[in-house]
């Protein structure tokens, strides 16, 4: 059973994501991890100010239960199902990241520079995490879905709109990593 504690290869992770997609379909729902953000805005009372959030969120409660599960799953995986969580990224990626100042590349699950507790007192790290989040939230709603809703659900159903969105995801990601990262880091 030691393999459970090791990082899971793509041919385990990918099929299990398809499994989650079908579990939700057979439960009568659809796979999408960003619409819960809309539900949370509605619960917080955003519907009083913005019509977009004026819907009955009670019908979306299942979505928040999936979110609660994802949090619990992350806790279980990190604390009970993992040995060494260092991510074995490609050697040339490590070299590039080290030259950009990411000392923890190849030795941690996430870069300490952004995700260690000290990041809370680093204005640059906070700005990166916040702006990244705003783009994720805004972009997901504008595009009508995120990686799960478009890249997995939508492409599985051969939806052209989802293919356009996924091409957009990659254009955005490539612009960020190749053009903007040299300016940011």
């Amino acid at each position, binding site marked *: 059973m030691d393999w459970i504690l090791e*990082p899971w290869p*793509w041919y385990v992770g*990918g099929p299990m994501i*398809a*499994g*989650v997609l079908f579990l939700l*379909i057979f*439960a*009568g729902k659809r796979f999408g991890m*960003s619409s819960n*953000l*809309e539900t*949370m*805005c509605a619960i917080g009372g*955003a519907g009083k100010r913005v019509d*977009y959030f004026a819907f009955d969120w009670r019908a979306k409660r299942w979505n928040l239960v*999936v*979110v609660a*599960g*994802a*949090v619990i*799953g992350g*806790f279980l995986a*990190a604390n009970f*199902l993992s040995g060494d969580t260092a*991510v074995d*990224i490609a050697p040339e*990626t490590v070299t*590039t990241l080290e030259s950009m100042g990411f000392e923890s590349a190849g030795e941690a*699950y*996430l*870069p300490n520079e*952004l*995700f*260690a507790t000290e990041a809370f007192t680093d204005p640059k790290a*906070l700005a990166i995490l*916040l702006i990244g*989040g705003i*783009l*994720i*939230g*805004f*972009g*997901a709603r504008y595009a009508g879905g*995120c*990686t799960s809703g*478009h*890249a997995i659900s*939508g492409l*599985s*159903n051969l939806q052209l709109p*989802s293919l*356009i969105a996924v*091409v957009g*995801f990659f254009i955005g*990601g*490539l612009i*960020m990593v190749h053009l*903007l990262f040299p300016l*940011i880091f």
Partner: protein
Amino acid sequence: MKYLKFLVIGIIFGIVMFKSEAASWFRIYEMFRFQSFHMYGIIGSAVSLGILGTWLIKKFKLKSIDGAPIQFTPKARSFSRYMFGGILFGLGWALAGSCPGPIYTLIGAGYLPILVTFLGALLGTYIYGLLRDKLPH
């Protein structure tokens, strides 16, 4: 009890996101540098099996566990919202190194600064609601 199945599905999803390293900022960066097959293998195998399963569900007109026919709603036709929204999402995905699912996984895994990204995502969702009528769709 009707929510228990969604909790279990969420737990499986959270574990898979963490253990497959799809929730790692490093893996997302490596993917956009085309320096590893890992993320492409995850997305490619998930979509391949997804296409096969979705086709089988349609072909055999399978029903969900509550007995209702499974229907797939086609997404509304448009170009601009998917392309512009997609690009903005991709910028955030690469910058914060996580998409919405992994944000929750990382909160559970105890990487607390990701809470800032979570609050940003809520704010971004709210801003979209505010500006929706002014955006090309």
